[in-house]
């Protein structure tokens, strides 16, 4: 969005109401979730979602490092969202830029809203999200992966956190934008839902939406999150039905 001076905007919506990849407005990209994808982490998950490839690992509850962050009455949640240098078109310098730091913060706060942190005082629960291949919606893919990784690690939570971005493309509210839609679309609204309470713990937005459009986007996002929720539960059932498996790729 807001790509100043961009050359030409592609047609994002066909006359039949179909999107550049043939999806309907309320249709998700293909999503695959595998719990327990890594060996070292206490819990982990690999998510492939459209052309996104995202890993999440959870370590903890463990000693807090650095020490002065330790809290007497609860666990601290430390979240690190990071993009691999090769995950985007133009090589990204290794290390956390300001965008990654902001995303790390809001994702960490989202999970601190559902994890029963008071059960593990003086410890740290560390969530690491690595984006290996990015194609819009990586923070939501990261939340989905981290959520499953937390469950895989046996961390008690009020609920899993499905997440999805809603946007506006070609004048219409659309679910789960892919890169071209995000680049040339009119709005982007990532969110994460607590399905049982129906409340949002992550919500960001950028672009142009009228009040009715915003309401519509919220409702569509909630609907999308509920679909994703089912897939997350399925991934966890598979993990415990068939026992631990290895491999970050399918």
């Amino acid at each position, binding site marked *: *969005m*807001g*790509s*100043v*001076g*961009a050359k030409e905007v592609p047609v994002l919506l066909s006359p039949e109401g179909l999107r550049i990849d043939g999806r309907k407005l309320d249709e998700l990209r293909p999503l695959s979730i595998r719990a327990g994808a890594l060996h070292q982490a206490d819990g982990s998950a690999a998510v492939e979602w459209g052309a996104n490839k995202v890993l999440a690992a959870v370590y903890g509850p463990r000693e807090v490092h650095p020490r002065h962050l330790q809290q007497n009455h609860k666990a601290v949640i430390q979240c690190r969202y990071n993009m691999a240098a090769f995950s985007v078109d133009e090589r990204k310098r290794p290390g956390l830029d*300001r*965008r990654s*730091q*902001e995303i*790390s*913060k*809001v994702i960490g*706060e989202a999970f*601190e*809203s559902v994890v029963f942190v008071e059960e593990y005082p003086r410890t740290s629960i560390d969530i690491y999200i690595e984006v290996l291949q990015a194609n819009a919606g990586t923070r939501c893919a990261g939340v989905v992966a981290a959520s499953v990784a937390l469950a895989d690690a046996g961390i008690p939570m009020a609920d899993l956190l499905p997440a999805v971005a809603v946007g506006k493309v070609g004048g219409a509210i659309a679910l789960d934008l892919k890169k071209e839609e995000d680049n040339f679309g009119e709005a982007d*609204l990532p969110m994460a839902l*607590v399905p049982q*309470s*129906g*409340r*949002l*713990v*992550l*919500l*960001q*937005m*950028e*672009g*142009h*939406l*009228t*009040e009715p459009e*915003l*309401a519509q986007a*919220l*409702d569509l996002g*909630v609907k999308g999150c509920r679909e994703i929720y089912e897939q997350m539960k399925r991934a966890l059932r598979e993990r415990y039905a068939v026992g631990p498996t290895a491999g970050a790729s399918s």
Partner: protein
Amino acid sequence: MSEEIDAEIRTTHVLDLAAEGKRLDGRGPDEYRKITIEPGFVTTADGSALVRIGDTAVVAGIKLEPGKPFADTPNAGVLTTNAELIPLSSPTFEPGPPQPGAIEVSRVVDRAIRAAETIDLTRLCVTPGEKSWVCYVDMHVIDHSGNLIDTSLLAALSALTHAIVPAKRFEIADADYPLDIQHYPIECTFVRLGDAIVVDPTFDEERSAQGRLTVATDEAGHVVAMQKGLIGAFSPDDVKDTVRRAFRHGDELRARARGGAP
């Protein structure tokens, strides 16, 4: 330790009051603290403002310098937004590199300014692909009594509104000229205190909050940016209601930023 207990007592007090529909400073849930805007506060800047919301104060300064456009936007100037949460302004801030809190303020303000297309960046291009103006928006928080986002954006917008492009000094044009402002984004921040959702939180209210929500609107009826922060949750209906309130406040604050008069 007494600091920790003190914070806990205040939190309980804030929440108890909220349950009765009250606030520590006597405001209603939808009432801002007193706002003052002092444009032109810093004469070394190309545009500036000191904005206070209650006891919170932010000085924003604009600097325009010739630079190079980004490779992917050769016809546009560059906008750089930075908030400094210096340790002078709060006992909770420490010296050192920007903390996540400062980065969040910078980015949320930046997002509103950018998404609203506040300034027409193509008009800051001098020679396509070679030379363009870099517009630095620096927000210096000098007193932190809560609601840094709204105060910082208001300061940035007021400073931009009065900014002059120093084209003569840099020998790029024969005369300086005002920066061209296209749109006027305003951010309104709310926090949840139990069942209540109140606007313009104080520092104590932020510390007690069960979620924070910022909504940026423009003068044409768009939501241009949002950010949920802190630990806590909002229902979609909460969000819709908050957006409605943000539009109401937006109009009032926008008039203040554009005029600069009290």
